[in-house]
Structures are given as structure tokens and as C-alpha cells.
């Protein structure tokens, strides 16, 4: 669709998710037209035929109403259930990120900008460069209020909450610039919390990555923080403090003091750094980890997590 059309009717279709959402929408739109035509048609037809003063026969009115009512109750229920199943199916697919995405991007929302971090350590503000035809998983959090990451051309949207991680995924199928918008009201400049997704060919994307002048990947930056913030003082093999080693811990199941078991994921690691307490602390270790709440930014936490993740992907590595 060109930009110059007189009245736009349809947003660009630029991802695999957009195709599937559009299909569903068109299906329901057609159904709505049918139902609307039926109701409006009947109202108009009855209004004309049975207007006051018309000579239409008004005898033999439908007296027994139950089979009519049961008819349209069951009818609408059946139609609705079909729509529900179709929708729920697509939603599970839409909201279940692939296990091994081609690319994982960290997104931090703050009043009123989007900060993106690429695995190689490249950072962008209000712009997100992506290669075409690759599945992308976003790990998103907010530094202040609730934002919502929305790319109309991809038909995907997810709220970005402070204090927790949310994920979403998509696979761009067209190159070009597409708008990012904040969908959850977040303050004065909410309308300007916008940006662009720049979808490029793989070669262009690789080229772009190299021109960013970054020498350390996110994980390497996280490792530097790990030492600077004193984490290594306890969590290293030769430490005198009895603290769990972090090598290979990401993705494993740990048993907690409270008796629960939890998968070590981004949310769990974040809680460990910020909240502390027995619903976090691993069984068998003294609860001595201090809370870093207020002392560390969301970006730093993501770097630390990236570092801890990297310890799992290189077996034998020990901090």
C-alpha cells in the first residue's frame, strides 16, 4: 500500500503474525457483515411492512417462542465457540515465543523512550534494526510505569511492566521501516514514545552491527559488572562465603528454602538480585545475599543476566 493513498484502509502487513491476525479479522468481519445485514434487514423490512397504516396481516403471530429462542441461542453459541477456538489457537501460537529464536533483543521502556540492546552489545534508542525472515524474541521490562510495545505492521503488542519481564516474538517478512508505538498511557509524552523497526536484509543487518563501534558483547559487559558490583566476591569458586556457583545454573531447576522448586529464568534471576528472601534463596545456602534494589539499573540487570546465561552455554566455564 502506498503512502499517498487518499484514505488508508489497511495497515502494512510485514510479519508472519500479521498475516494470521489479518486472516482472523477478515473472517470475523465477514461474519459481522452477515449478522448485521440480517438484523438491519429484518428491522428495516418489518418497519416497512408492519408500519402503522399498512394493511399487512397481523394475525397468527408467533406465540410459542421457545423453539425460536433456543434456536438462536444455540446458533449464536455455536458460532461464538468456533470463533473462540480459532482465536485461542492463534493466541497460544502468538504468545508462545519459540524456544530458540534466531535473535534475542532486550527492550527497556522508560518515560518516554525505548532502549534496545542487541546480544553483541549494540544499543539503540527508539530504533530497532532487525534482519528479515528471522524469528526475534524480545525480553522487555520498564524502568518506571507500564508501557506497551506495539508494532502495528506486525500486529503484535505486549505491555512492558516495571518489576517483571515480559516476552514477545515475531518474524519480520518485509524489509522497510515500521512504526513502534507505546500503547499504554505513560504520561505527558506518551504520544511521542514512538520509534521505528528497521527491517533489513541479513547482510545489511550484519553490516549495521559492525558499524556500531561496540567492542564488548552484552555478556562481557555483564561480566565486568559482575566484578565491579562485588557479585564475584561471593559467587566465585574460591570465595570464602558459601554462595551458589552460577555456572550452568541458567535453565536449571533449583530448590528453594521455602520448599518450592523454580526454573532459573530471567525473572528468577531478577528477583534474586532485587528482592531476596526465602522464596528466592536456594536451599542449603545461608540467606546472606543483600538486595540490590535501587542500586542497579534495569539495563545493568539485563547485562548481568546475559552474563549468567552465557555461563550456561559454555560448559565448564566457572566464574
Amino acid at each position, binding site marked *: 500500500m502506498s503512502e499517498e493513498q487518499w484514505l488508508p484502509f489497511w495497515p502494512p502487513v510485514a510479519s508472519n503474525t500479521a498475516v494470521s491476525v489479518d486472516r482472523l479479522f477478515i473472517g470475523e468481519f465477514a461474519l459481522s457483515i452477515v449478522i448485521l445485514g440480517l438484523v438491519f434487514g429484518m428491522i428495516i423490512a418489518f418497519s416497512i411492512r408492519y408500519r402503522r397504516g399498512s394493511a399487512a396481516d397481523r394475525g397468527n403471530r408467533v406465540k410459542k417462542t421457545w423453539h425460536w429462542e433456543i434456536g438462536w441461542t444455540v446458533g449464536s453459541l455455536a458460532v461464538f465457540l468456533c470463533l473462540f477456538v480459532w482465536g485461542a489457537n492463534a493466541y497460544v501460537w502468538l504468545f508462545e515465543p519459540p524456544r530458540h529464536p534466531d535473535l534475542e533483543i532486550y527492550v527497556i521502556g522508560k518515560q518516554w523512550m525505548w532502549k534496545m540492546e542487541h546480544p553483541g552489545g549494540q544499543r539503540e534508542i527508539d530504533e530497532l534494526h532487525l534482519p528479515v525472515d528471522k524469528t526475534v524474541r524480545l525480553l522487555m521490562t520498564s524502568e518506571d510505569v507500564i508501557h506497551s510495545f506495539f508494532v502495528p505492521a506486525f500486529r503484535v503488542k505486549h505491555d512492558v511492566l516495571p518489576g517483571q519481564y515480559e516476552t514477545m516474538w515475531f518474524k519480520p517478512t518485509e524489509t522497510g521501516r515500521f512504526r513502534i508505538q507505546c500503547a499504554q498511557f505513560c504520561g505527558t509524552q506518551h504520544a511521542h514514545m514512538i520509534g521505528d523497526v528497521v527491517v533489513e536484509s541479513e547482510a545489511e543487518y550484519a553490516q549495521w552491527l559492525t558499524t556500531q563501534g561496540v567492542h564488548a558483547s552484552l555478556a562481557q559487559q555483564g561480566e565486568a559488572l559482575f566484578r565491579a558490583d562485588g557479585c564475584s566476591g561471593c559467587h566465585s569458586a574460591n570465595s570464602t562465603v558459601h554462595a551458589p556457583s552460577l555456572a550452568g545454573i541458567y535453565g536449571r531447576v533449583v530448590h528453594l*528454602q*521455602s520448599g518450592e522448586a523454580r526454573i532459573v529464568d530471567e525473572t528468577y534471576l531478577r528477583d534474586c538480585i*532485587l*528482592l*531476596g*528472601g*526465602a*522464596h528466592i534463596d536456594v536451599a542449603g545456602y545461608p*540467606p546472606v545475599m543483600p*538486595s540490590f534494589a535501587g542500586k542497579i539499573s534495569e539495563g545493568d540487570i539485563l547485562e548481568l543476566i546475559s552474563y549468567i546465561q552465557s555461563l550456561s552455554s559454555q560448559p565448564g566455564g566457572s566464574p
Partner: protein
Amino acid sequence: MREIVPEPQFATLEQQTETAQLGMWVFIATEVMFFGALIFTYFIYRLTYWEQFRLAGADSRILLGSINAAILLTSSLTMVMAINFAKEGRQQRVIAFLLVTASLGVLFLCVKGYEYVLDYESNAVPSLNFAFKSGYHAPSELYWVWYFVATGFHALHVTIGVGAILAMTRLAWRGRFSPNYYTPLEVLGLYWSFVDTVWLFLFAAIYPLGRAVT
């Protein structure tokens, strides 16, 4: 004693009584939702931050909470007795028991106030002088925030109740009730017992945490 007639929209006094009682029950249903929503927040956070709530709860004052529960339970009994004496038309006793009930309500508020003072002295009041004690993490403060909100709303209800009881005492003094008609008393009794019930749930939510000897 002057003749008591129903208000113009009612046919009989019985209809008026029944209607007033139903009105209070409907109101109690809304109050259940009000305090229920509060307990709902407790429920979610207690499950999420089990240990933090246990730790913080151990610093609450169960002795004062228990005394207060006993005071309110007793006041419910005295209220019911006042209503019973109204049914028998024994005005002196009605007034006496209403005053006892109101005094117990005031006593409750005094104990509650004393507890607040102790909480303040032990630096447990969020936004005023909250201090993280050993083992406390951020969610521990949630417990204390909740404690003050919940007991505050309840104390407000008790205060309104005491005021209403005193107003009823005045009406009883002026001979406005008869064995045929003491509906306002009955309706107030429902409210008072309900406020008592709320405290029992708050008690269960606030005080018994983190005292188990392991």
C-alpha cells in the same frame, strides 16, 4: 409512650421492619465485597511472599490483637442483650447495655491506638519511620502497609458504630422504642456484629504469622 406509626410508603410496621432489615443485609453484602477486596490483596501477596510475610508478621502484637478480638466478641454479646431487652420493653437495661457496648467499642479503639503507638516506636510505620529489620526485604513492607490500611478501615467502621450506638442510646432515652418497634436497634446490631466479624478475619490475616516454634 407515643404511638409509633409506619412511614407513609409502608403499609404496616412489620413491612417497615422487614424492609429495614433487608436493607442492612444488602449493605452488609457490599461491605463483604469491600473488605473482601482488601483481603484479596493480602491473599495474593501472602502466597507470593510467604516468608517475607511470616517474618514481618512475627513483629505484630498478638496479645493486643487477641485482647481486641475478645473485646469485640463481648461487645457483640452485649449488643444482642440490649436488643433482647428492647424486645421486652425494659428501657433501663437497654440503655445500660448500649452504653456498655459503646464503651467496649471505645476500649477497642484505645487498645488499637496503643498498638499503633508501639508500632511507631518500633519503626514499623511505612512512609513515616519504616526501618528494615534483619531479614526484611522489600515485600516485608507490603505486610505493614496492608496492616495499617486494613486496621485503619476497620477502626473507621468501629468509630462509626460507636457513634451510631450513642445515637441509639439517645433515642432509647427518649422512649422511641417499644416492644413493637425497635427496628433501628436491630439493624444497628447487625452492623455491629458484622464489624466484629471483620476483625476476626483481620486477626487471622495479621497476627498468627511467624510464631511457630520450629
